[in-house]
């Protein structure tokens, strides 16, 4: 590279073949270019070797990307994933729609999730009236009702407030809901993909309303969106004054339209449906509002015929993400040391412990937590396992610091029955066959 001429540097950004011409090791490269044009991987010219059957062509052959220029830096103004990653996408199924694709959900590929931050383009997407496209110039936020000083803000004004960044999951309370009466999806993306996690940036509502003078009789806050569905929801003032935020950014950039661009509500740990997107209005009141999404929907019907309302938090939960039906152990050999890992989370606190069972919940061992351990956030757990090629029933059980323990299916359904739709957090089990195939099963007594 140090032999490159000035001219060649100027040409870097233009045509690859052209700049190759100008490099001093011209002859080698010219040949290489010819080879690479005729074959995907040309034989290395710089270090020719005699091939044995056992030699890996990925090593002994010069790879195409090593012998020609890549893209110029000007290629993607906004970067996109490698084209090889085209299967790492959100997915949908008709079962989860309320008629059409405008009142539906698209699931996060959590089998491909690494670490604890979901890339913005893969964040699960639940809408009740389509994804609104809001022009930031026409955006207004109104805060009124039982406050001494009602307020209207433009987007620029809102962003002048001091910002806080917090990592929190957002989960639809219907996550896992299609499986109350038995397993239906042989897929983690569909069994548990109504959730994602991001670092959210915005203003703490308590910082914003401190100036507005909340009247003493204010007990509730209505949050409403400016989209087609408006998505009104009632929030108790205690949460508003604790950790509630008005956010405008996710993972370092403006919210995606699917997440409520330009502004959404963030109530850490609570039902995704409460994190009102395209936020338009906050109204403080003495009595709750009884919006459609907290009466007709998002209420948990129990066998007594009574339904639990205002069931805000997502309870302690966990899922093994590797292995899983999409990422089985079919390539493992007996004796391989493999990492079992997964995600644990609780809307009621911080993950404290995760246990793993190999025998369908008869015996348990404690897994290690790894990475950041944050409140109301996905936490990674890990267990190193020497693969034996024998059938397993793999489960995980999470415990949080508020004393909540993930229940078995029997423990949960004994209280809330099987028609609850929402808030299913019972222990998940993967059946691993002797071939390493992974299936979604339920364990009952």
């Amino acid at each position: 590279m140090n032999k490159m001429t000035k001219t060649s540097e100027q040409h870097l950004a233009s045509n690859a073949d052209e700049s190759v011409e100008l490099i001093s090791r011209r002859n080698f490269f010219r040949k290489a270019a010819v080879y690479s044009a005729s074959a995907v991987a040309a034989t290395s010219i710089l270090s020719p070797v005699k091939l044995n059957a056992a030699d890996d062509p990925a090593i002994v052959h010069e790879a195409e990307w090593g012998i020609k220029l890549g893209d110029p830096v000007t290629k993607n103004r906004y970067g996109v994933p490698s084209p090889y990653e085209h299967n790492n996408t959100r997915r949908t199924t008709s079962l989860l729609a309320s008629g059409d694709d405008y009142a539906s959900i698209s699931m996060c590929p959590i089998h491909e999730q690494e670490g604890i931050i979901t890339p913005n383009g893969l964040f699960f997407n639940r809408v009740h009236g389509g994804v609104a496209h809001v022009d930031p110039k026409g955006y207004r936020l109104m805060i009124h009702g039982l406050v001494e000083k009602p307020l209207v803000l433009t987007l620029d004004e809102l962003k002048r407030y001091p910002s806080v960044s917090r990592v929190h999951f957002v989960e639809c309370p219907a996550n896992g809901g299609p499986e109350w009466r038995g397993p239906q999806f042989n897929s983690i993306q569909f069994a548990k993909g109504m959730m994602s996690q991001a670092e959210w940036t915005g203003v703490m509502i308590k910082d914003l309303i401190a100036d507005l003078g909340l009247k003493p009789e204010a007990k509730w806050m209505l949050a409403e969106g400016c989209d087609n569905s408006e998505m009104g929801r009632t929030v108790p003032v205690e949460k508003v004054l604790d950790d509630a935020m008005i956010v405008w950014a996710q993972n370092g950039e403006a919210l995606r339209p699917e997440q409520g661009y330009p502004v959404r509500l963030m109530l850490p740990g609570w039902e995704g449906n409460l994190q009102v997107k395209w936020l338009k209005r906050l109204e403080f009141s003495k009595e709750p509002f009884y919006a459609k999404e907290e009466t007709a929907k998002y209420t948990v019907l129990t066998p007594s015929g009574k339904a639990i309302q205002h069931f805000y938090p997502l309870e302690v939960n966990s899922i093994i993400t590797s292995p899983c039906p999409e990422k089985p152990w079919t390539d493992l050999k007996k004796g391989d040391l493999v990492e079992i890992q997964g995600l644990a989370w609780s809307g009621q606190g911080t993950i404290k412990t995760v246990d793993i069972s190999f025998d369908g919940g008869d015996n348990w061992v404690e897994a290690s937590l790894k990475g950041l351990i944050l409140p109301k956030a996905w936490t990674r757990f890990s267990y190193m396992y020497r693969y034996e090629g024998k059938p397993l029933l793999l489960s995980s059980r999470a415990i949080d610091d508020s004393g909540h323990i993930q229940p078995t299916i029997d423990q949960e359904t004994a209280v809330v029955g099987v028609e609850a739709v929402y808030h299913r957090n019972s222990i998940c089990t993967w059946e691993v066959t002797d071939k390493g195939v992974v299936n979604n099963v339920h364990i009952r007594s």
Partner: protein
Amino acid sequence: MFTLDRKKIISSALVASVILLGTACNASTETEKAPAKTETKTEVVKTVPETQATAATGDKGIDGGAVYTIKDGMYTSYAVNEQAKKDFTFGRTPSKTEEAAWDIDVMPDGTGLPEGSGSVEDGDEIYEEQCAMCHGDFGSGGKGSRSTYPTLSGGEHDSLTYQRVGDNTDGPKRVIGSYWPQASTLFWYVQSGMPFNHPKSLSDDETYAVVAYLLSINEIEIDGEEMDDEYVLDREKFMKIKMPNEDGFIPVIDGPDGPANVKKFLADPNNYGNGTRCMKDCLEGEKPNIVRIKTEINAFEPPMSVERSFKEAEASGPIHPGQKVYESSCAACHATDAMGAPPSGDKAAWDTKLEKGIDVVYANGINGINAMPPKGGNMTLTDDQFKAAVDFMIDSAK
């Protein structure tokens, strides 16, 4: 029940936070922090008690979960900006007109419910024109491009105790008459959210009418009176409605004790299911009863795959000028023939329409015909934009 080294976890979390938020920590010096701290305490944290711990205080929040406070500039693993945050000058006071324009929610005590009236008969007509194509005749639920639209009637209150376990195949029917606790929700939702494809288009009288119709097909009686075709619903009568499932929800959220009731309910995980931390012989000698998938659902879009093979970039031609309008304003009805609309790209269906000539087809669409609302319900479209969308649906035919 179990012992765990909490210190270990907290300290590792702290280490992590230093890595994550190192610069923020360094930026705020001790002297800056001191005066600001007292201010934030008294002004901001009103209902959440301050205690000593960095992690959970041991107190429970309204959601039955842990409560965290700020200790030594840290909120759990996050460094906190504790400088004064008061007396901001941004924004302005909304005018009364502006507040009224947005404040259209309707509460159970009648707050927000406008004056007006409408009959069941008029509501039936509006329903047939603007709702039936999705919600079916008499609210029976209609087929959409993906699944069925919500059912708006036909549920027995008694069904709420049904559980689909064992041989029972009948589940609870959660519809307006059997489940919704308040009629105010229906007025508010219909006026602000329906019809789905162009909401906020019904006048107060039209909303009264269609709400009256929906209540009548749910066999709601007002003050002991059945709602027949001639029944006219107005504000006064509306305030007398008592929904059959008004008392079907726990905990009680109304009145001054509402939030406290919620807090008490959520503080007890036995109200919604909690586990136990058994480590050995938890099944007490029994074998685990494995329930496998009976009918697998795997019609996923796109199909499930974790392949990392190279996909040729799809040859994407130029975008049709009508495609955007089609997707935002027409696709809800024209993606399939479920509602009787000629589906986009269905040559036979459009050929039949085109027999009368393209101009008639344009005109019918612009003025509306049968279940096709004028301009598909989106009156902001210019005629040219509308025609482009029609062209797109016709041109998409292969």
